[in-house]
């Protein structure tokens, strides 16, 4: 249609789409799915790291971790707001998360078993997230683009802090160094898989790229992440658990092995290590908090009535 053509034309000219602008239903739906999935990831993402707040091994690390988890909840909040501009309410989105209907990043279905895992989440998981999110600062939908600008600034801070946790470990005792290597062994492949399936198997990608809400291919970002991370691991004196990893002089890039995609799809389907625990924790928080939300509502109603009566 003409509307569709005009819309695509705006996108091609890098004009931001704003909430009141006309947009195709598919664009709206895809954006809602993408933004809410990202929001849910921030919310669920509080859990694996929150698991170590009470056990952070120094006051400074505890403070930094609290600040980080606070940021994540904050990101969830902006992103829900960005999604709301597309006509979906936070309650609907919450319901989708709690019922297991909505997805969130599979990486949060892995458990945090030692303090080193908190370092790995910062270094690798936030590193991969930034790689995905930096381009989205230029995405076609205004509120999403602006949320991404704010999120990226904080995420890169988190990544540096994560790296610093790992640095302290490798500079520490033998046990600490072993803890770091063990955590890297467990988190490397899940981080690699955060970029999604190989381009050949990736659904929706082409249309999203045309709409300017996906700006790079999965494999492109994955390669960039590997190329960035390998020298960091070398600097830290840690070994990436991939025997096929080696520098390719021709490509001026690292070759690397194939992740276990069966595992990836299995985790997506809900069969990951912590899927049940994560959903259970969020549902419990929601159910246990019902009285709190209802109490505030009841108070608001009383106040409104009193105000009306006083008029």
């Amino acid at each position: 249609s003409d509307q569709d053509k005009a819309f695509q034309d705006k996108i091609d000219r890098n004009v931001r789409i704003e909430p009141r602008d006309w947009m195709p239903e598919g664009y709206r739906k895809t954006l809602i799915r993408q933004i809410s999935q990202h929001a849910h990831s921030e919310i669920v993402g509080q859990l694996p790291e929150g698991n170590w707040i009470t056990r952070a091994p120094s006051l400074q690390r505890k403070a930094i971790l609290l600040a980080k988890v606070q940021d994540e909840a904050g990101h969830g909040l902006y992103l829900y707001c960005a999604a709301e501009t597309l006509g979906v309410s936070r309650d609907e989105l919450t319901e989708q998360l709690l019922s297991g209907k909505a997805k969130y990043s599979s990486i949060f279905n892995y458990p945090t078993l030692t303090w080193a895992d908190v370092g790995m989440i910062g270094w690798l998981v936030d590193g991969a997230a930034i790689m995905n999110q930096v381009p989205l600062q230029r995405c076609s939908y205004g509120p999403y683009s602006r949320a991404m600008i704010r999120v990226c600034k904080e995420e890169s801070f988190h990544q540096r802090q994560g790296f610093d946790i790992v640095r302290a470990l490798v500079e520490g005792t033998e046990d600490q160094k072993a803890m770091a290597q063990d955590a890297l062994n467990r988190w490397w492949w899940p981080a690699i898989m955060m970029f999604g399936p190989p381009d050949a198997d990736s659904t929706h990608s082409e249309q999203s790229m045309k709409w300017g809400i996906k700006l790079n291919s999965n494999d492109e970002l994955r390669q960039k992440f590997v190329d960035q991370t390998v020298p960091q691991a070398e600097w830290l004196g840690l070994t990436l658990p991939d025997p096929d990893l080696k520098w390719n002089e021709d490509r001026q890039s690292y070759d690397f092995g194939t992740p276990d995609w069966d595992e990836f799809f299995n985790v997506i389907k809900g069969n990951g290590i912590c899927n049940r625990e994560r959903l259970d924790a969020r549902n419990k928080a929601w159910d246990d908090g019902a009285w709190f939300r209802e109490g505030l509502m009841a108070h608001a109603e009383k106040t409104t009535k009193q105000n009306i009566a006083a008029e």
Partner: protein
Amino acid sequence: MSPFATFCLRMGDNALILGQRTGEWCGHAPVLEEDIAFANMGLDLIGQTQLWYGMVSDELGKSPDDLAFFRGEREFLNTLLVEQPNTDFAHALMRQYLFDAWHLPMLDGLTGSTNADVAALAEKSVKEVRYHIDRSRDLIVRLGDGSPESHDRMQAALDWLWPFTADLLARDAADDTLVAEGMIPAAAPVQQAFDWETAETFARATLTAPDGPRRTGGRTGNHSEHMGYLLAVMQSVPRAHPGAHW
């Protein structure tokens, strides 16, 4: 230990242990805004812990981290109130409010301390705590005067926690020495501010502070049985790796 060190440890231990309880909520609060608020209060409290411990680190020959992670239960001097468990979110809110209602006038008084470092610390912290009590007071009122269930939960939390406020407000010889030196505020104005604050707020919240016995002990290292478990978790990583840096 000098009266000054005792006082600083009490202040620091209160902040640390309440920060620890606060941090337990991350990702488990009833709404996202509370997740954020609790993480934020926890952050303020851990920051205050570092400042208080820093004040006495030299006298005690222990780093702030050693004070946090390598003391035993009987050496912690926080009040019983802050170590009470997160039975539900009502307990968490009420514990925070009762603590704030004491913490604010205490810090406010400390801004006039004859010790310039203490005054500066208090100046910085009192701003954070003003924000804490604005939030916690508001929620006490709204939930106390909310639904029947929210009222009952807040009242139950108040019934459980109120006796521990005696420990919060207690004073001993160490405090008397510091009052005489103008280092810390006298007991009366802090108590009065606490009484006014809580009386007015509970009236608005339709809640009633219970009569009956009061509990003390935390400030002298006589804790409730919850404390050992809290420390076991909090100190587990440094204790498992003695001598490590993080």
